[in-house]
């Protein structure tokens, strides 16, 4: 079976600073992958290279059997790659419902499924209720708490009906039960067939969610495998968790 996402020898520099070096990574359809690493290890840069916010200088990114290195970010989204941002980036002048409506209008419709205005609204409402924001559908993002912002961010990524969802630290700052909520949400999404890359610092969440764990340190991949084994890896312990 071919991989859904295949990153091959990816390299990215910012001036003289090597942000990513020779990263190879593949994800099968339906997989649950955890991506961890200390701050500044290149996790977000990797996500940005995969999603098209940044262009990789070396190596290649293939998605669903197609090279996507030269595609603009929105084209990658159309192919089925969705992400949430580390710091929530809602559309501040649009209501929550309209925030969710954007990917429906621009991504789902670009794939050829036309919906009536009513069904788009119904679908947006459904997505909002999945993250528990249905009561705030007509509010603006500025009326939300930080936690709700993160939920909105996830709901908007889900609205694009992705094949692969990259959740970039979507649980930072959340309470125990809120982390559980989001994990449940992600697992449910995964059960519907969506592959998920979870980037997270909350180890409890990562360990319970991931079926495979990848560790980045200083722009290099130092481990990739079954989570418990990876955590026992002496190099990971040394580099990531400290001596």
């Amino acid at each position: 079976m071919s991989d859904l996402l295949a990153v091959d020898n990816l390299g990215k520099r910012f001036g003289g600073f090597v942000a990513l070096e020779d990263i190879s990574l593949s994800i099968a359809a339906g997989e649950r992958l955890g991506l961890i690493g200390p701050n500044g290890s290149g996790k977000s840069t990797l996500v940005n290279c995969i999603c098209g916010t940044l262009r990789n200088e070396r190596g290649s990114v293939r998605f669903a059997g197609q090279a996507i290195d030269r595609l603009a970010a929105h084209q990658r989204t159309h192919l089925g790659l969705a992400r949430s941002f580390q710091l929530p980036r809602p559309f501040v002048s649009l209501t929550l419902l309209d925030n969710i409506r954007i990917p429906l209008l621009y991504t789902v419709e670009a794939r050829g499924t036309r919906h009536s205005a009513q069904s788009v609204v119904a679908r947006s409402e459904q997505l909002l209720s999945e993250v528990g924001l249905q009561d705030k559908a007509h509010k603006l993002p500025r009326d939300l708490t930080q936690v709700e912002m993160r939920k909105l961010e996830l709901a908007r990524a889900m609205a694009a009906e992705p094949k692969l969802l990259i959740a970039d630290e979507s649980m930072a700052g959340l309470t125990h039960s809120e982390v559980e909520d989001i994990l449940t949400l992600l697992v449910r999404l995964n059960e519907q067939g969506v592959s998920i890359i979870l980037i997270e610092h909350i180890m409890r969440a990562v360990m319970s969610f991931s079926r495979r764990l990848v560790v980045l340190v200083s722009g290099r991949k130092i481990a990739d495998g079954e989570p418990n084994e990876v955590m026992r890896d002496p190099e990971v312990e040394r580099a990531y968790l400290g001596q």
Partner: protein
Amino acid sequence: MRTPIFLLISLLIAAAVFGAAIAAGNDYIFFAGYVVMQYVVLATAWNILGGYCGYVNFGTAAFFALGAYSTVAIYKYTTNNDTFPIPIPVLMLIGGVVSGIVGFGMGYLTLRLRGAFFAIATLALAVVLETLVVNWEYVGGSRGAYILRPETVPIVGNYVRYLFLIMLLLAVAALTVARLIEHSRLGYGLATIRDDELAAEASGVPTLRLKLIATTISGALMGMAGAPFPYYISYLQPDSTFGFDYAVNSIAMALIGGTTNWIGPLIGAVVLGTLQQIATVTISSAVNLLIVGLLLVFFVIVAPNGILGLVHKYLRRKPDDFVGRRRIGIDAPEAAPQSVPGTAPGPSL
């Protein structure tokens, strides 16, 4: 409200305005009204890029002048070759096409720039184009160009009335286009660009394409507003045609009215434009800029979201959640046009 009905009502209002101007029995009203209508078009056009999409364009004068100089070039050609003069509506279409193409080109070259950098680039465009025109002998160069206009036209009579009528119709057209964009998928896309381009791309919005559409439409409308100008002024000179006041006025009008909605620039242009015309007659034409400056300062302090923002704030106190409900109504059968729609923070500079 469906677009044809909106158009019909707008045309009826335009007809009433024209009728009232005739009833007033003073031709100066047409002369002054032309300028106000011209600013309705310019402010509306500016707002399509500046308000909806958040890209501040300081090059209004460039697009306006392009339209005007297309007319001059064609006028020179027809008089030199003794061919039949081309009617103004056709000249407007030509001016629109020329400015639209330049708008597209400018967009392609500059839209990778954001914020103040984009604004500076558009300012530069005006300077470059002015230099070209000044050195273009055929359209009069720095000496300017004279246009001899007929005294009267059939049916309408007086030529200034005719020009006013045309500009009134163009204003209706511009407002219809703006309203159509605002309530469409394109309008939502432009709003996401204004709010956050990265997030827009991540949601699948083809940001560069939408920005190009916006610069093209905005530029084309400005060019159309400029095309009849040589006939209005009869002596066209690069200095004044590329004047910075077109840029400042169209921005100020949109900001004073409110930028997130098609009504905003209309209100702003009518209020500010009329004030300027009155000041020109009663005090002096130099007071115009003072008025613009003072009003801008006032609005930035008191009502940063413009007149619409003020009205909206007042309405919001009563029913809960006015913004939300109005926004939803956009796609569903539409709410009454008179209701003041949901506004949001203005364009980010």
